[in-house]
């Protein structure tokens, strides 16, 4: 009998059919990978399975028993646990409070705090997930929040665990650790549905892999009978994914960005910046590597004028934009921030309105002091087409786009929405994107470079850094730990990221 069985699931949002008769089954002790591009319907399927959405057709069964549609509690009671892509933790509550919420152990009508804490610690320890149960969930790192989510489901006795894009926000090391955890959970007899578009991780974790495309299931195959290339083709519907353009040797351009001895504390308790110097030339991509929390966030904010700092900072020789985001934009700084949902998009606005933001007072988005609706619509169609934003509808509410399409939207606005940028600051520009979208964003960054922009890209993904960068600078504790050529090995970069080698390339 299957631990979880979905049969013929149909789900519509207005005129849009998100799921069109999808059937899937996961057995106990098995990890089933579910892959598909952004917007293919993966997250919707997860929401239907766990009762958050009620399907317009089809059935969900757990251990052979049918679950009532749209009833999360019934799904939980049947042993279904979901770890969502956007974590479902209440930030001001503690870890143990988040875990027990909705199923609180009681004593004399009050929460039995002692029992709750010890149970939560015990579950975490037993599964090898280290956690401080008294920490506030909002203060934890992303990886720790995810551990809380997993503990939350295990404490509830989940026998079927659904992980929705579990590695999207993790560093490569954290992702590898997660894959180990997932294998261990399956070995204990749990069924795991591992939803992702990161093929390497799915291939590492799953026993079987299902591919979904535009709301339809297109194939299910054992891991031994498929590979990344074949899966990518199935996801995109033929056509070869990957195939990146060879690196064009960069010109010896003029220095666009010059930063000298940048220093400033971080309010988050990290080192902030401690005397970082760097430069980026016109027509080159400088990759910035480093373990999270070594000054990446602060660097991006300084370069885009969001954070004042000590030290020298010039753009084309002009220090004017220092600490002034509006001036930075006028000077031609484009910003692809690390959390586009919070920092780059106004989610309740439409796609075309978000595309115009920041340039909304200029042509083609405005005529004198009125919005130029026709001009904006035309420009929006162009950008949507160029960056393959789905659904291709300028008036769609941005909040209704999938995460990957939201990120494409930001790239479209920042890189192509107006005059050519002088400096592009991209922070994890493809985190959470599927291969097709990643390729598009990478092409856009290369295009910006080829048109003479200086590009500074911060990423945890070493493959991405090597594929795009002309030089790689390694940040360590708010300073440069040195530079490496783009063909540096994982090991070499890894040592620099840990501050062990004062390398000079």
């Amino acid at each position, binding site marked *: 009998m299957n631990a979880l069985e979905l049969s013929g699931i149909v789900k519509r949002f207005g005129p849009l059919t998100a799921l069109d008769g999808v059937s899937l089954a996961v057995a106990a002790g098995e990890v089933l990978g579910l892959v598909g591009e952004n917007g293919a319907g993966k997250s919707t399927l997860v929401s239907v399975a766990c009762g958050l959405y009620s399907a317009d057709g089809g059935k969900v069964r757990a251990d052979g028993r049918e679950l009532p549609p749209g009833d*999360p509690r019934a799904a939980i009671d049947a042993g279904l646990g*979901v770890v969502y892509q956007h974590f*479902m933790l209440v*930030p001001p*509550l503690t870890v143990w409070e988040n875990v027990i*919420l909705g199923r609180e152990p009681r004593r004399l009508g009050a*929460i039995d*705090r002692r029992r709750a804490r010890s149970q939560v610690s015990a579950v975490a320890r037993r599964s090898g997930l280290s956690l401080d149960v008294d920490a506030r969930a909002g203060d934890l790192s992303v990886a720790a929040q995810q551990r809380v989510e997993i503990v939350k489901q295990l404490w509830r006795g989940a026998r079927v665990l659904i992980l929705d894009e579990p590695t999207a926000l993790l560093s490569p090391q954290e992702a590898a650790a997660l894959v180990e955890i997932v294998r261990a959970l399956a070995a204990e007899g749990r069924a795991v549905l591992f939803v992702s578009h990161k093929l390497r991780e799915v291939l590492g974790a799953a026993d079987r892999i299902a591919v979904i495309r535009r709301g339809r299931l297109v194939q299910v195959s054992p891991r031994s009978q498929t590979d990344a290339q074949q899966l990518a083709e199935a996801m995109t519907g033929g056509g070869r994914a990957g195939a990146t353009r060879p690196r064009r040797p960069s010109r010896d351009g003029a220095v666009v960005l010059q930063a000298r001895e940048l220093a400033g504390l971080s309010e988050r308790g990290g080192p902030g910046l401690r005397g970082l110097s760097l430069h980026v030339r016109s027509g080159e991509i400088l990759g910035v590597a480093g373990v999270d929390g070594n000054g990446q966030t602060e660097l991006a904010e300084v370069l885009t004028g969001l954070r004042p700092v000590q030290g020298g900072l010039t753009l084309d020789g002009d220090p004017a934009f220092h600490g002034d985001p509006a001036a930075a934009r006028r000077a031609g700084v484009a910003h692809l921030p690390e959390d586009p949902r919070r920092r780059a998009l106004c989610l309740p606005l439409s796609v075309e309105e978000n595309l115009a933001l920041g340039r909304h007072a200029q042509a083609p988005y405005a005529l004198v002091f009125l919005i130029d609706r026709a001009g904006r619509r035309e420009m929006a169609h162009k950008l949507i087409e160029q960056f393959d934003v789905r659904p291709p509808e300028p008036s769609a509410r941005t909040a*209704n786009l999938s995460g990957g399409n939201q990120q494409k939207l930001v790239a479209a606005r920042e890189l192509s929405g107006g005059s050519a940028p002088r400096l592009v600051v991209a922070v994890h520009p493809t985190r959470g994107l599927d291969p097709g979208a990643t390729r598009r964003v990478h092409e856009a960054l290369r295009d910006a470079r080829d048109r003479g922009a200086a590009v500074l890209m911060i990423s945890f993904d070493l493959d991405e850094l090597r594929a795009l960068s002309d030089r790689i600078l390694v940040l360590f504790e708010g300073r440069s730990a040195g530079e490496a050529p783009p063909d540096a090995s994982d090991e070499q970069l890894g040592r620099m990221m840990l501050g062990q080698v004062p390398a000079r390339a």
Partner: protein
Amino acid sequence: MSLILDFAPPLVFAALGGVLSERAGVVNIGLEGMMRFGAFAAAAGAIFSGSPWVGVACGALAGAAAAGVHALLSLRFRADQVVSGIALNLVALGLVTYLLQAVFGSAGVSPPSPALSRDRFGHSALAYAALAVPVLFHLWLAHTPAGLRVRAVGEHPRAAATLGIRVLPLRALCVAGSGVLAGIGGATLSVGIVGQFDARMPAGQGFMALAAMVFGKWTPLGAAAAAFFFAAADALQRQLSFSLRAADLRLEGIFLALPYALTLLVLASGVGRTRAPAADGVPYEPEGR
């Protein structure tokens, strides 16, 4: 000092009502209107039954009924919570004035109602309840399953929903409870302190209660402390204007404004660091993203 324990209870109850509703994620500007319904219903109930406690119960029910309208509008129909609250205040103003005329044939005050008995310090049981209820509310919010769920629903309703908590019914219950508290606050004004209903009631106390809630950082103990602070300002004002009345009548207006001015000052100085519940005022859409 004794005056403070007289003036504080209406504010305390209403401010706690605000805390309950907003911690669950529903903005409640309608406290003023709920207090007004409560004050009138309490006086009417006490007069017709002859018992002030029946009056208090009527006040609580009237507050809950008014809150029910707010819950229906803002939760079921997802009306803007601020607009719905303001509408409630305006309806209360008009409807209660009409009822006062229709029931008691008066535009100013109701006939005297049976008042709550007072102990030898001159305080009614509700005055002492105003000291105890904030503590009980705090314990409930911090240490019971229901309190935890309320906090979760006000901060991140979707996270609560994924754990099987029914967001909208819980929010509706909290809004109704908010109305009960505000209604008792109003009852305290009419049958507790004055012994009759006055057409001017509650004279802005509902808004002061909102300010106390914000000043108290949306916590029961903080809001109650702020309510006592405002009540102290009110008591001070009465003392001052009483002693100065002979000297200069023109100053009286300024003293009347004292508690309100103090409220403004306090909000301007201390409010910058407070944080509302994250989902306060945000309608919850079960199938939204």
